[in-house]
C-alpha cells in the first residue's frame, strides 16, 4: 500500500506492507534514533510523535500513519541536546538505552503540560522504563530542565 507521511517536516511517499510497524518504516527512512526495545508496548523506548502526540512506534502500523506528521529525535536535535545536558549533569543517564524514548516523552510533556508538579511528571513518564537510574536523577533533570525552559521563554 502506498502511504505519504511527513517525517520531521519532509514529505515521504513509500510502498509499505499492511503489517509493517511504524518503527521499522522509520528506521528504513534513516531515523535510527527510533529504537526497538520490548516491542510489546511496555518500555517506551520507541516513542515518536504522531501529529504532535507521543505514541509507541512499535505498536502503530505504518499504514495507520498515512497522511500524518511524524516527529522523531532527528527533528528535535537542539532541544534534545539541551535536555540531554541536564540529564548528564544529574547523572540521569547511565547505560543510556532508555534515553531516546525518555527525551521524546519529556519534550512532548514540556509542550503539553504547563508547569507540571512532581506527580504530574511521574504520571506522564510512567510508560518510559529505565533499568539503571532508579528515576530520581531523571526526575531532577526534568525539573531543572523545565525550570530553565521557563526562564528562557
Amino acid at each position, binding site marked *: 500500500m502506498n502511504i505519504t507521511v511527513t517525517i520531521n517536516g519532509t514529505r515521504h511517499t513509500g510502498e509499505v506492507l499492511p503489517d509493517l510497524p511504524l518503527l521499522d518504516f522509520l528506521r528504513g527512512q534513516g531515523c535510527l534514533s527510533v529504537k526497538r526495545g520490548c516491542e510489546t508496548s511496555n518500555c517506551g523506548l520507541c516513542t515518536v510523535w504522531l501529529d504532535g502526540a507521543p505514541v509507541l512506534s512499535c505498536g502503530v*502500523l505504518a499504514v495507520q500513519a498515512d497522511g500524518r506528521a511524524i516527529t522523531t529525535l532527528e527533528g528535535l536535535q537542539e532541544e534534545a541536546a539541551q535536555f540531554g545536558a541536564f540529564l548528564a549533569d544529574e547523572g540521569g543517564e547511565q547505560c543510556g538505552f532508555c534515553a531516546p524514548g525518555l527525551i521524546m516523552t519529556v519534550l512532548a510533556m514540556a509542550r503539553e503540560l504547563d508547569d507540571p508538579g512532581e506527580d504530574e511528571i511521574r504520571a506522564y513518564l510512567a510508560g518510559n522504563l529505565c533499568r539503571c537510574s532508579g528515576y530520581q536523577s531523571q526526575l531532577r533533570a526534568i525539573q531543572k530542565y523545565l525550570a530553565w525552559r521557563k526562564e528562557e521563554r
Partner: protein
Amino acid sequence: MFTAQEYARPATLAEAYALNQRRGNTIIGGGGWLRMGRQRFHTLIDLSGLGLDNIKEEDGRFTLGAMVTLRQMELDRGLAGAFGPLFVDMAKHIVGIQFRNRATLGGSLAARFGFSDVLTCLLALDCEVELAGAGTVPLPRYAQMPYDRDVLARVILHKNGRRAAYESTLITHTDIPVLTCAASALGDSLRVVIGARPGRASALDGLSLADGPERAAQAAREYFSFGSNMRASAQYRRHLAGVLAARAVRRLQEVNP
C-alpha cells in the same frame, strides 16, 4: 506480531461491517492488543475514516465514538465536569500516555478483557453500545455476550446524576490490574462493579449508599466469584474486593455525604 495481507479504511460503517463478516478479516482500533498476538489476518479494517473519534455531549448524554482514545477520555472536560476524576483514575495505570494516545475505547470494550479497567469503569455508569449489526445494546448485556463479528460504533453514556469512584490494585504501576473496582450511586442506590476477578467485570446493584462502606465491602466479598492466576489467588482477590469496594464507597460519601 500478527501478519496481514490487505488494509482497508472503509468510508461507511456498513462497509466496515460487511468487510468484517469475512473470516480472516479483523477490525483494528489502536492495534495495541492485536499486535500482541500472532494471528494471520487477511484484511485489517481501520475505522479511522468514519468520524468515530470524538466525544459529544447533548441531550443529557455523552456519545463516544469507538475510535476515541483512552487519553481523550482522561482529558475530556465534559466527562471531567460530569464525573470528576473517574476517567483519570480508570486510565492512569494503563501502560503510559503514549499507549493511551492510541488505545481505543472500541478496542477496549470489544475485547472484553477480564482485567479491563475500561469495562469495570463504564459498567458503573449507565451505558449502551451501538453495534453496526445488532443495534443498541445495554453495556451489561454486551459485556456478557460471546464474541461475534459485529462492529462497535459508539458508546452512549447517560448523564443522569449517577456519580462513580474508581479503585484498582496493581503489583507494579503499569502492570495489568490484580483487581478492579468501581462504585456508583444514583441517589441512595449503590452499585458495585468488580473486574479482573480474573473473569470479566460484573455489577451488583441494589445496595444502599447509606449502609456505608463496610456493608458494601461485605456484599462485594460475598456476591462475586473469584479465581486464581499468576497475579493473585482467589482468596486474596476476595479480600481485596472488600477493601476496594469500601474505599470507593467512602469516596462517594465524601463527595456527597
